[in-house]
């Protein structure tokens, strides 16, 4: 079974994200790491390949400056190789531009993958529209917000537990398909030192827009066809009194709840 996993490389969220003051798109000048949201997809993919008894996991990523830091982490987890699309014309790409690039990269994988996995949304941009855009561009069925995926029919179809407003749905889908995986559904494996060293030798194929046959106008800031007209700090809420519990703080809370007439 061949699985392609979209893996975004993002600035470390321990350092607060910021906008580029010039063009008001995400500043991506810091070193990039694997988006934690994608580590679940990588883990799910590795387990499915193990369950299928063969195959491999290919990572697909779009990042500036040929960044590979996040991809190396996922390769150390067990992915076989990666496709990295890096091109100066991609700066300022929106969700649809990103989906076009990822779709073209996935189309270049031969033989084509049985399953494409994504996160439900990235941690830094979180538009949450890339999975469905990507599925549409690849002419694939999609099941978004999956909590669990199992192979069925000797690896020809999948059963997916999908999060809903009121619980979950169980769905069946023949392959190939695209599934977006919610965070926290599996424990991503922690690569061993040996695996980290071995990952350095795994292939990362870098692709340009020209190699994918994508016009620079269709992606990047030009392709986004939207403009940020203003950015302001979100309205701050005023904090009130802060007390240190010395055994009677619960009475203060109860008093306030009574005053607010919720008891």
């Amino acid at each position: 079974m061949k699985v392609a996993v979209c893996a975004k490389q993002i600035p470390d969220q321990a350092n607060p994200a910021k906008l580029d003051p010039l063009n008001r798109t995400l500043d991506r000048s810091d070193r990039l790491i694997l988006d934690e949201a994608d580590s679940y997809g990588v883990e799910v993919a590795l387990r499915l390949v193990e369950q299928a008894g063969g195959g491999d996991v290919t990572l697909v990523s779009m990042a500036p400056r040929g960044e590979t830091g996040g991809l190396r982490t996922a390769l150390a987890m067990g992915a076989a190789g990666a496709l990295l699309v890096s091109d100066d014309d991609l700066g300022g790409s929106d969700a649809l531009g990103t989906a076009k690039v990822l779709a073209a990269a996935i189309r270049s994988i031969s033989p084509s993958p049985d399953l494409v996995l994504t996160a439900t949304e990235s941690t830094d941009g979180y538009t949450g529209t890339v999975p469905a855009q990507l599925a549409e561009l690849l002419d694939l069925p999609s099941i978004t917000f999956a909590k669990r995926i199992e192979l069925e029919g000797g690896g020809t179809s999948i059963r997916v537990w999908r999060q809903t407003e009121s619980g979950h749905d169980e769905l069946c889908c023949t392959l190939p398909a695209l599934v977006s995986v919610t965070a926290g559904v599996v424990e991503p494996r922690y690569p061993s030192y040996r695996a980290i060293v071995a990952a350095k030798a795994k292939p990362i194929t870098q692709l340009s827009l020209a190699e994918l046959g994508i016009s620079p106008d269709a992606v990047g800031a030009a392709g986004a066809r939207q403009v940020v007209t203003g950015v302001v700090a979100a309205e701050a809420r005023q904090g009130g009194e802060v007390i240190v519990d010395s055994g009677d703080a619960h009475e203060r809370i109860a008093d306030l709840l009574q005053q607010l007439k919720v008891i």
Partner: protein
Amino acid sequence: MTLLDRVWVAAESATGGPSSATLELVSGARGLGKVVELFTWGDEATVASSADVLGGYGVTRVYSVGDIGPALPGPRVASGMAGLIWAGDSPDVVLVGATYDGRDVAGRLSAKLDRPTITNVVGLAEAEGPRLVAEHAIFGGAQSATSQFTGPGPGIFVVRDKTFEARPTEVSGVPVSVVPVEVAELGRTSAAQVVSRHVETQEGPKLDEATVVVSGGRGLGSPERYALVEELAALLHGAPGATRAIVDAGWVAYSHQVGQTGKTVRPTVYIACGISGATQHMVGMKGARHVIAINTDRDAPIFGIADLGVVGDCGVVLPRLIESLRARG
């Protein structure tokens, strides 16, 4: 201010009448366009009864792609919309809820039409053109940006819940026409089939409708202590909520998550237990009228927005609070 000519709203969940998310969106759309039309799915009787309700909210036409059976709505609704738009019958904008199925509709429509989306929208206003300016939270709500589309329409906006208030119109008895929409062959895209639905039974009010929400975070210390959060919520006739951190850690189900990825809540009182106040969480609860926070860390950002902050251990304060409330009856 110039109104747009025509706004489409994608329905959310077609069973049991229009959802609150749908009524919010059509109410908001009324302030933006002269004509508000809804795109939905379902059997004839269901669509007809929904249309009656929607008429009271200013919708004049309901397009239906028909009964979708066990399929997911995304591919069919997006295809129905794209079909009309390609035939020259296009709205100025399409509003879609930032929900599970809504994102599917928005994403597929965007790719079909080659039109961008603006997501996480929390406000929409008219600008010159006429065009819409969207307000959307970035960096988990730490900053707020305004954006506009610069290319040809229709613009696709993915709108967070609670952005608009559901308000019926004052005029009544306006007829709503139901228009069936032919959908082109969907091919592979509609291969996913729902085989069973599981509704998690939930006692008490719904999280996004409760007047009191009691939420727990990593600072509770252990998954067992979430029972205290549930107990306090039940006592206050409220709903228990959670941060992404403890949902990801598997302490509670995703349906409890409040924040950027989860639900937006606007209760009268929000009680944050062991929650530090990451922006990802705050964006989902900062609309609460009153906030009470309990946390061991005096420097936790949640105290910056709390009406009453208690520096203390939830494992100690919560049992005492529950006991005290019981005593007060």
